[in-house]
């Protein structure tokens, strides 16, 4: 008997979960967006190999899978950074000065749509997160901050060591 289990048994659990999601939709191509949602939940982002697997399993052309994945802003084809700032740029937040928040992040080298200097901060802008009553709103690592200020951003960035 060997001490270590055969490679197949330590197979990534995520693969199984993705498989289950696809079979729930009977591997139908119509379920592509749902499957991509699941894949992104499991893997954090959608690398080409993953898209290829999905294309094969759903029997869809690879270009169509990428075409769909790239159409929707929710899907990320790049790995996510450790920390994410989402600045709401909905009308209410815009009127309330959300651009100041983007500028504050910008000053720290973290530009919208890109990862920051240390590649651990990503900055995104959102088209209204629906917290208009609390404008300007900022989602920092999944937590909504109402009436965010550049000072708040500065403090958070300092806390995680981004200058």
């Amino acid at each position, binding site marked *: 008997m060997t001490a270590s289990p055969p490679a197949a048994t330590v197979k990534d659990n995520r693969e199984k979960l993705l498989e289950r999601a696809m079979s729930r939709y009977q591997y139908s191509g119509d379920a592509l967006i749902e499957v991509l949602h699941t894949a992104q939940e499991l893997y954090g982002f959608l690398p080409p190999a993953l898209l290829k697997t999905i294309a094969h399993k759903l029997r869809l052309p690879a*270009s169509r899978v990428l075409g769909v994945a790239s159409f929707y802003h929710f899907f990320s084809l790049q790995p996510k950074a450790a920390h994410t700032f989402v600045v709401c740029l909905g009308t209410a937040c815009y009127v309330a000065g959300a651009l100041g928040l983007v500028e504050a992040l910008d000053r720290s080298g973290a530009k919208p749509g890109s990862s920051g200097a240390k590649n651990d901060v990503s900055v995104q802008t959102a088209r209204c997160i629906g917290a208009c009553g609390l404008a300007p709103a900022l989602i920092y690592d999944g937590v909504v901050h109402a009436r965010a200020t550049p000072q708040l951003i500065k403090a958070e960035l300092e806390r995680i060591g981004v200058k």
Partner: protein
Amino acid sequence: MSVKTLEIDGRMLTGRTGETVFAVAWDHGIQIPRLCHVGGLSDVGACRLCLVEIEGRKRLQASCLTLIEEGMVVKTATPKLKSHRKLIVELLLAERNHVCSVCVMNGECELQDLAASHGVDHVRLRYQFPSLPVDTSHERFGIDHNRCILCTRCVRVCDEVEGAHTWDVCGRGTASHIISDLGEPWGESDTCTSCGKCVQVCPTGALFSKGKTVAEMRKDRGFLKYIVTAREKKQWIG
């Protein structure tokens, strides 16, 4: 098959039920401009050049997607339509880097022809000058994204006629671009059959045969109708 009578640009014309306004007009020599339509492929109504005015309809209609109806009254070349078409051509010219003088399709390009026929002697809009690549990794063909107008003829011919679906549109809005497979270089595509149909249907010099130089490219679209008809009628059997 029933026949319908309609009026296009003051002429009484007839067409078969199920035919589009665009098809009936062209059959009778009324050449409505178009970029995304090509005979033999499905229509998407994206270029908006074939828009026509139809009496009783509030909005302009894409003639390539509008089926003829009995008694329809259609106008295809009103001053309003012409001015819209001209501006659409200008939008396209300003959107990417269309440099006719060094283009393989110079003199044969559908976009260039439209610009000429619509009197686009200068572009009133700001050129956007995007920085776009050329992919010549394929053994026989190349794609120059600078000349692409996103008409998706290549996507459709590859999907509908060749059946490979190598091409699709990636991204959205102004960032849209044509991709092969998962965005790899064309030469690395494992679905492309190198049939060259996409190259032939491309209205501009975006898709070209390698080795062709300035103004040397001639595209043949006759094959499409032939293949499609042959397939529909199963002409190869018997």
